[in-house]
């Protein structure tokens, strides 16, 4: 079955799996896992450059920039101002005007701060960024972010790095019915079936990091996530049968 490309502003992607570059044991494992995931978009974080020590290897030396679109994040920001500053610095590096906006409310839960997330979305849209915004699975918050001009709204399936999967598929369904921008599930994905669930619901994509990077075999898990994403998408496009309470025989009624 032919699928359409995923459009995010001026960008178009064939792969619907977005993966992070954090928490890998080595750059080599990361590179192999990125390749196995089939992803075209990879996330990176902005941090202070190492000074006064040996110049460390640069992450970007290990990433084929012709092959991947770089999606910088504002992870670790706890206010709109901090997130906007981080986004501006990320864009200044001259690689991407995409931003994965993340404004957190609390260090234990890493749940988004809805008020500052909205403020930062408004500012970054005005600044000309292509804003992909991380949010909770609250349909009203999601709608407000779309109205503020976000290119994609990215509800968490579960808290960041928790690996609990899609905790509230009903909220994700309401978001999908209410919003028109692409919905990408971001965070909480633990294993392949979590990705499939998100895609079967009709999400346009899934973004994950820890589920691959911290698996015992990251490269194998990356491939599992790729297949799960394709599988879930295909099932969604195929139109599943409705759930019924009673049985419905697969063979014709016996007639002899």
């Amino acid at each position: 079955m032919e699928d359409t490309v995923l459009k995010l502003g001026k960008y178009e992607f064939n792969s619907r799996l977005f993966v992070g570059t954090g928490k890998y044991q080595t750059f080599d494992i990361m590179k192999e896992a990125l390749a196995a995931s089939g992803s075209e978009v990879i996330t990176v974080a902005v941090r202070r450059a190492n000074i006064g020590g040996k110049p460390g290897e640069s992450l970007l030396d290990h990433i084929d920039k012709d092959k991947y679109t770089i999606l910088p994040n504002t992870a670790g920001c706890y206010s709109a101002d901090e997130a906007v500053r981080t986004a501006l610095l990320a864009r200044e590096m001259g690689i991407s005007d995409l931003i994965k906006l993340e404004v957190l409310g609390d260090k234990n839960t890493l749940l988004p701060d809805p008020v500052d997330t909205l403020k930062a979305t408004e500012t970054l849209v005005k600044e000309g960024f292509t804003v992909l915004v991380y949010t909770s699975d609250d349909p009203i918050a999601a709608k407000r972010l779309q109205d503020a001009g976000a290119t994609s709204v990215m509800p968490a399936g579960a808290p960041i790095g928790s690996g609990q999967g899609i905790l509230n598929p009903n909220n994700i369904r309401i978001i999908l019915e209410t919003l028109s921008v692409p919905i990408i599930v971001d965070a909480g994905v633990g294993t392949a079936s979590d990705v499939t669930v998100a895609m079967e619901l009709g999400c346009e994509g899934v973004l994950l990091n820890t589920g691959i990077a911290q698996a015992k075999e990251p490269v194998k898990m990356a491939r599992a996530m790729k297949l799960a994403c394709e599988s879930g998408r295909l099932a969604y496009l195929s139109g599943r049968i409705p759930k019924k309470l009673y049985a419905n025989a697969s063979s014709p009624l016996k007639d002899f």
Partner: protein
Amino acid sequence: MQINVNGKNKECPTETSISKLLESLDIDNRYIAVELNHKIVPRKQFNEEILQENDSLEIVTFVGGG
């Protein structure tokens, strides 16, 4: 003179440009962004921008993240 780079005090000669500073700190300047006193300095100004006493710099880069 004293300047502050990424939260650390550094001694630096007068008439030092941002480019010179990056060189002296062994920083790979391909994938970085620089803020001077909380304002972003465009890459093309790295050669011209001369540091002053007590300037505060943030030099950031991309690292692994999700």
